[in-house]
C-alpha cells in the first residue's frame, strides 16, 4: 500500500499512512488532534463516551469522531436556549461584525480547511473553503438589512400604525448535508445565526472533522458560546430527537432524506415545530443561489404590532 497521494493535513496523512509503514522509530511524532463536540463554547466528549471511526473515501482511517448521544442533543439544545436571548439582544451591527470575524478567522486557517476537505475526498477543497468564507461575509452584511427586506409597514384601513418585523424563531436544529461538509453547513448555519437564533448542528456524518475545525474557528471569533453547538454522530440515531425536541423552534432537514426525513417531520408535529430544508436551487452550494435573505426568513417569525393613532 502506498501513503496517501492527496494533499492532507500532517496529522491526517500520518494517521492514514501509519498502518502502511514498516515498524521504525519516528523522528518527530505528530501530535494528533482529538476531535470532540462543540457545546456552549467548550469542546466536550460525548456523555456516552462513544466514538466512531472516520475514514477516507478509500476506507483509510483518519480519526475517531465523537458519537454523540440523545443526551448530548438535549444538553446542546438547553445550551442553545440559554444563549439565545442575549445573542438576539445584540445589535444587528454587532452580529454582522461577529459573522464577518468568522470569515476573517477562517481565512487565517484556510489551509487547514483545504487540507481536511481534501482528505475527505472533496472535489474542490479550495473552492469549497473559499466559498464558505465568502458565505460568512455575505450573510454578515445581511445582519442589519434583512429586517428591512422582510419587514413592512402595513397600510391598514383605520387609524392605526401597523408594522411587521422578523424576529428570531429561537433555537434551530440543523442537519448538515454530506455533499459539501463545510460549505453546506455554513450555508445553513450563517442565515440561522445572523437573525439571532442559536443552533444545534449535526455535522456531516460521513466527514464530520471539518465541522469541528469550523467550531475551533467559531470559538476564537467572538461568536458567544452556545450560539453554535456542533455535534458529530449518526443521523439515524440523533435526527429523531432533534426534530422531536419540544424546545427546538425550527428543524432544518437539508441533510436528511427518505424515511428518516418523513419520520423527523412526523416528530416535529408533536410541538408544531417548523420544518425547513434547502430547495433544489439552494442546494447548489457553490452557486449564489444557495444564499438568500429568504433563507434567513425561514429561521424567523413575523410579529405584527398595532397601535392606534390619536392626538
Amino acid at each position, binding site marked *: 500500500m502506498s501513503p496517501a497521494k492527496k494533499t492532507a493535513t500532517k496529522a491526517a496523512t500520518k494517521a492514514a499512512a501509519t498502518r502502511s509503514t514498516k515498524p521504525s522509530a519516528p523522528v518527530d511524532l505528530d501530535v494528533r488532534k482529538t476531535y470532540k463536540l462543540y457545546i456552549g463554547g467548550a469542546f466536550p466528549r460525548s456523555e456516552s463516551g462513544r466514538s466512531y471511526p472516520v475514514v477516507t473515501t478509500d476506507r483509510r482511517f483518519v480519526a475517531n469522531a465523537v458519537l454523540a448521544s440523545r443526551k448530548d442533543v438535549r444538553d446542546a439544545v438547553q445550551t442553545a436556549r440559554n444563549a439565545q436571548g442575549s445573542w438576539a439582544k445584540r445589535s444587528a451591527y454587532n452580529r454582522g461584525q461577529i459573522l464577518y470575524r468568522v470569515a476573517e478567522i477562517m481565512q487565517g486557517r484556510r489551509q487547514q480547511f483545504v487540507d481536511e476537505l481534501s482528505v475527505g475526498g472533496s472535489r474542490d477543497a479550495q473552492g469549497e473553503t473559499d466559498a464558505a468564507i465568502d458565505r460568512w461575509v455575505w450573510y454578515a452584511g445581511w445582519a442589519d438589512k434583512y429586517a428591512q427586506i422582510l419587514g413592512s409597514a402595513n397600510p391598514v384601513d383605520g387609524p392605526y400604525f401597523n408594522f*411587521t418585523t422578523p424576529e428570531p424563531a429561537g433555537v434551530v436544529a440543523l442537519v448538515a448535508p454530506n455533499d459539501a461538509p463545510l460549505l453546506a453547513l455554513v450555508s445553513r448555519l450563517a442565515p440561522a445565526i445572523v437573525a439571532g437564533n442559536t443552533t444545534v448542528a449535526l455535522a456531516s456524518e460521513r466527514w464530520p472533522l471539518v465541522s469541528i475545525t469550523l467550531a475551533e474557528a467559531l470559538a476564537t471569533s467572538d461568536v458567544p458560546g452556545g450560539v453554535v453547538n456542533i455535534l458529530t454522530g449518526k443521523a439515524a440515531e440523533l435526527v429523531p430527537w432533534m426534530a422531536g425536541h419540544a424546545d427546538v423552534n425550527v428543524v432544518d432537514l437539508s441533510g436528511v432524506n427518505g*424515511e428518516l426525513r*418523513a419520520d423527523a*417531520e*412526523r416528530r416535529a408535529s408533536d410541538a408544531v415545530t417548523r420544518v425547513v430544508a434547502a430547495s433544489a436551487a439552494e442546494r447548489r452550494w457553490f452557486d449564489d443561489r444557495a444564499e438568500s*435573505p429568504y433563507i434567513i426568513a425561514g429561521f424567523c417569525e*413575523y410579529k*405584527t*404590532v398595532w397601535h392606534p393613532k390619536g392626538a
Partner: protein
Amino acid sequence: MNENPPDVAVVAAPSAVKHLDVAPVALDYVTALESTAVVDIADRYELFIDGRFVEPRSGKHFATINPATEAKLAMVAEAGDADIELAVRAARRAYDEVWRDMSGKQRAKYLYRIARVLQERAREFAVLESLNGGKPIKESRDIDVPLAAAHFFYHAGWADKLGYAFPGRSLRPLGVAAQVIPWNFPLLMAAWKIAPALATGNTVVLKPAETTPLTALLLAEVIQQADLPPGVVNIITGAGATGAALVGHKGVDKVAFTGSTAVGKSIQRAIAGTGKKLTLELGGKAANIIFEDAAIDQAVEGIVNGIYFNQGHVCCAGSRLLVHEPVAELVIDKLLCRIETLRVGNPLDKNTDIGAINSRAQLDKIESLVQSGRDEGATMYQSSCPLPDRGFFFPPTVFTGVSQSHRIAREEIFGPVLSVLTFRTAEEAVQKANNTPYGLSAGIWTEKGSRILWMAERMRAGVVWANTFNRFDPTSPFGGYKESGFGREGGRHGLASYAELVEGGRR
C-alpha cells in the same frame, strides 16, 4: 332603566363573594331584528365542483342548524372519497389548463369581480352568517363580510404585481391547495384562504366547517356570478373525515388549515414526508396585559372586545387578563359592571353583543372547562343577563383568583370566559404572558410608549395589539408563534404561503 341593581352571580364558595362598588346602569333597548327576507335558504345544498353544484357520490347529506334556535336550516352534502377525487381532479385540470398560465392582470380582474359581488350581496351574507353561525348581526355585518370583500380586493391587486413582492425572486404557484377552515369566521376564513391562493396562481378545494357551510356555499354562487373558470375554486362540505381525506389526497400540493392545535398537529403528522407545503393557524391563549398607567376605561373596553367578541370563538381572543396589581381591583370592578350591560341573545337583533355559541358540542366544552375552573378554586362571576330558552347560549363569565396551573389559564376555552391573573412587574407580566405553548396574539395597555415597544418585543406572539385588540386587516400579516401554527395570512407575507420563491420566471 333597570330598577334593581343587577346581581353579579357568584357561584363559587361563599368566601369568594364580591360585591360591586358601583351598580351598572343597564339600558333597555327595543328589539331591532334584522330581516331574514334578504336570504333565500334552499332545502338542500350540493357540492360545488368544477363550476357546478353536483350531488355527492357519497349519497349522503347532513343537517345544518341555526344554533340560536336549534332549528334545521338545510341539508348539506357530505363529500366522500369519490367526491374529493372529483374536486381535486377539477382543481388540477383548472390549474394545468387555465389558471396557472393566465396573466396576472386577468386573474386580478376575477378577484376584483368576486370582491364587488360580495359587497353587492353583503347584507345577504351577513344575515346568513348570523343564522348559520350564531354571531351577532352587528359583527357579521360590520366586520366579517366587509373584511372578506376587502381580502379579495387586496389580493386582486397582488395578482399582477407578484414580481415586486419579494425583491430578487418571482413567485411560482404550488398547484392545488386543500383548505380546511373553522366555524368561527366562516366566510372571512374562506376569503383569507381563497384570495391569496388565487392571486398567486393556485387552484383550490375548500372545505368549510361542518356546522357553518352555508356562507361558503353562497360564496360558490358569487364565484359563478363572477364567471370564474370552472374548477379554480371547488367547495366541498363535510365533517372532520372529509377534511382529513382532502388534505391527505395525493393530488394536493398545498395544505392550509385553520382550527384547533390538536387537529393541526394531526395534519402536520399526516402529511409528513409528502412534500406538501403546509401552513397552520391554530389555537391561542392570549394575554391581555393592563398596566397601572393604562387608560383604564379604554382598557376595559379592550378587555371586553378581546374576550367577548364573537362569543369568544376567536383563536386570538384575549382570554387571559393580566392586570397590574395596583389597578387590579379597579379594573375588575369596572369589568364586572361592564359585562352586566352586555346583551346576550338573538344574533339577528342589532342590539345583541353576544350571540349564540356555535354548537351543542362547543357549549358542552365551555361548560366543562368552566366547571374545572370552579373545581380548581377560582372565583367565578357571571353576568345576570337572561339567556334565551332555546339555542346554545352562555353568559359572559370572568374568573378571578386564577393561577397559572389552572386549566382555565392553560387551555383554550373558545368561549366568553375570561381568566384574570395579576402581576407586579413588567418582567413578571412577560413571563406569565409567554407561559403557554400558544403564541398567537397579545394585548398591551399602557400610556408609556417605550414600555409598549419593550413589551411588544418580548411577547412570543405573532400579533401584538397595543392599546387596542382584535383588529384585522388584509394588509396586516396574521399568524402564530409556537403551537399557534406557522405561516402568515394577509399582507405581502401571506403570499409566501402559496408560492415557491424562484429566480426568474413570471413577474
